[in-house]
């Protein structure tokens, strides 16, 4: 197996995520925190993020249903999700969160609903992409590995 090739692929995947605006610099910060003491730190954080953000999204969904037009509440929940997005640099998702909050500010129910759908979509897309990315990384092996027995 050509590990350096895999690593290259992973790197280019990451680059495209950045270029397309899915991720921002914060993601690099998270990756930088990874070290020998916690060699899978980045992936752990991302996993944690998706787990938690799924929960937050479901909260929002419930709130949209149970508390119609309660813009304050909606905004509050979205605020949480937005904060979470910023933790890993989920840039597109964060933008959608912000636009949702703007609609809340305007009292625009329709806008909120649409925006929320976009948030969910971005969430799903990002999750897919990052899963692929980390899988590639895992296959590529630890960065320090020079050669490995063929798989």
């Amino acid at each position, binding site marked *: 197996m050509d590990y350096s090739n895999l690593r290259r692929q992973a790197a280019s995947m990451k680059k495209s995520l950045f270029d397309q605006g899915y991720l921002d610099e*914060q993601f690099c*910060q*998270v990756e930088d*925190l990874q*070290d*020998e*003491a*916690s060699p899978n*730190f980045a992936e*752990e*954080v991302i996993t*944690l*993020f998706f787990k*938690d953000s799924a929960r937050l999204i479901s909260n929002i969904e419930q709130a949209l249903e149970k508390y119609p037009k309660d813009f*304050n509440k909606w*905004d*509050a929940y979205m*605020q*949480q999700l*937005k*904060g*979470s997005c*910023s*933790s*890993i*640099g989920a840039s597109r998702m964060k933008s959608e969160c912000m636009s949702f909050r703007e609609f809340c500010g305007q009292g625009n129910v329709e806008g909120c609903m649409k925006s929320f759908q976009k948030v969910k979509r971005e969430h799903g897309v990002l999750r897919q992409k990052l899963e692929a990315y980390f899988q590639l990384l895992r296959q590529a092996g630890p960065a320090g590995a020079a050669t490995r027995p063929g798989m």
Partner: protein
Amino acid sequence: MALADATAFPYGLRVLVVDDDPTWLKILEKMLRKCSYQGWNLCFPLSTNCSVFTVMSIDGETSRVMKGVQHGACDYLLKPVRMKELRNIWQHVYRKKMHEVKEIEGNDSCDDLQMFRNGCEGLEERGLFMRADSDTMRKRKDVDKDHTDQDSSDGATVKKARVVWSVDLHQKFVNAVNQIGFDKVGPKKILDLMNVPGLTRENVASHLQKYRLYLSRLQKQNEERILGAARQDFGHKGTSDNLNLRSSFQEQSGNGTTGFQHGSQKIQAQSNMLDPHLEDTKIVVPLKVPDKNGTSVSDVIDPQNVTSASPLGGVLSFDRMPVNQDRKPSETMILECQSWSGSVPPKQFMQYPKHNRERCDLLGDYSCLPKPDLEHPITPSHLYAPPQLVSMSCSMEGDARDFSDVKPDVLGCMKSLSPALMCTVVDSVSAQLSDSVVTSTNSDQKFSSVEGLSSAKDCHIDQARNQAPLLTSEDANIICGTDLACLPDDLSGYQLQGIGWNSIDLFQCNDVMMLNGLQNNWYDDPELSSEIMEFPLLDGCLFA
């Protein structure tokens, strides 16, 4: 929903991170640990009773920023938080401590840094948190800074002149003092000799006062140490070629658990909480040092002492005698474990050439300076080469190879010591190594071995963790002495997880209490730091 974690740095500083977002908690925890590894921890004086609150939020608006400040926020950061900002916080906390220490001399308690992060509306409703627009973060920070600057001139004794006692500046100061003669010194003379434009007599006077206090405290401690040391076996001290790694826990048996007469005792207290067997924890661990003459020094580690080392109460002092036959100071290498004070390394280094202290209290004095060592006097000049965390001033002309030979031994010895010591020393070592005369190749080696130690520490963690004062009433001083007193009770209900590092337990809690009225000097930029002269090293000593 979030868990409660507390970060306790070896010198007793606690960091409480509160957030309702687990992802952020994980990230922040890692960042804090990384900061520790990098050894930029400040040397906080344990003698002050104050807490620092930092508010972080995802976005912010001016009104909320103000609100946060009013409620005592010392600083606020925007998420995502950068390492640099975290470091700045520590610097700020430190500075703040410095400032208050001057007034509160004699009080002892734990320093606490609390970082509260808000992601939740509910929390905000309690009036605790500020939010700042990401776009306007810079401005907010400036506003906040100005705001706090104006509000929080504590009317300390320091003059309005903003003097930052950098290493260089202090070096000049000390040189001047020595030149004049310590007994005859006066601020005016020093000022003239230093010849630093912009420095006022008042600055110097104040600095001199601290210096004197520090020295007297050092002497006092040294006496105590000598007394204690006398009971120990110092067989190696006669061997000038030795690198002595001394881990001497302050044997202030009675003091540890009681009050906090000294910063060091405070640490002692803490370590007592961790390990009741402090008395017999004096360790003398001479290291093997291949000197130029090729004579190797046998190193002996007293296993009994080592194993009973207390995680926090240790005082590590590494003395290295001159290697060459002439015992020139140039060969001196001293590893200071105190290095937490290196947060802003250039600024936190005090030199006392006249008073060769080879030992340093890891926690007690927070001094990066060697303590008075009557057994092994060493010429000053080389002790303080680069003002690094670790004054392992490898001024040895010997080749790097020698140094590298030593290092593994040092590290090896440290492995058997308490985690806290290990951590600090290790960090220091690694930090220093990068600046020593050792070549980068050796540095790499060091770093790798340093990192190797991390895992070695893990085994100690349980002990530390189990004994870590997780929000006991004693640790109420973790929390700002105002309303947060109730916090421990609340937090105790939370699951406490020690993570990894012995001295770093992160408490994560999403229950936030009101923070009242802490107005603090807050500076974004160390450069802008104020009228407060910084004596990171001094703190523990001077203001114990």
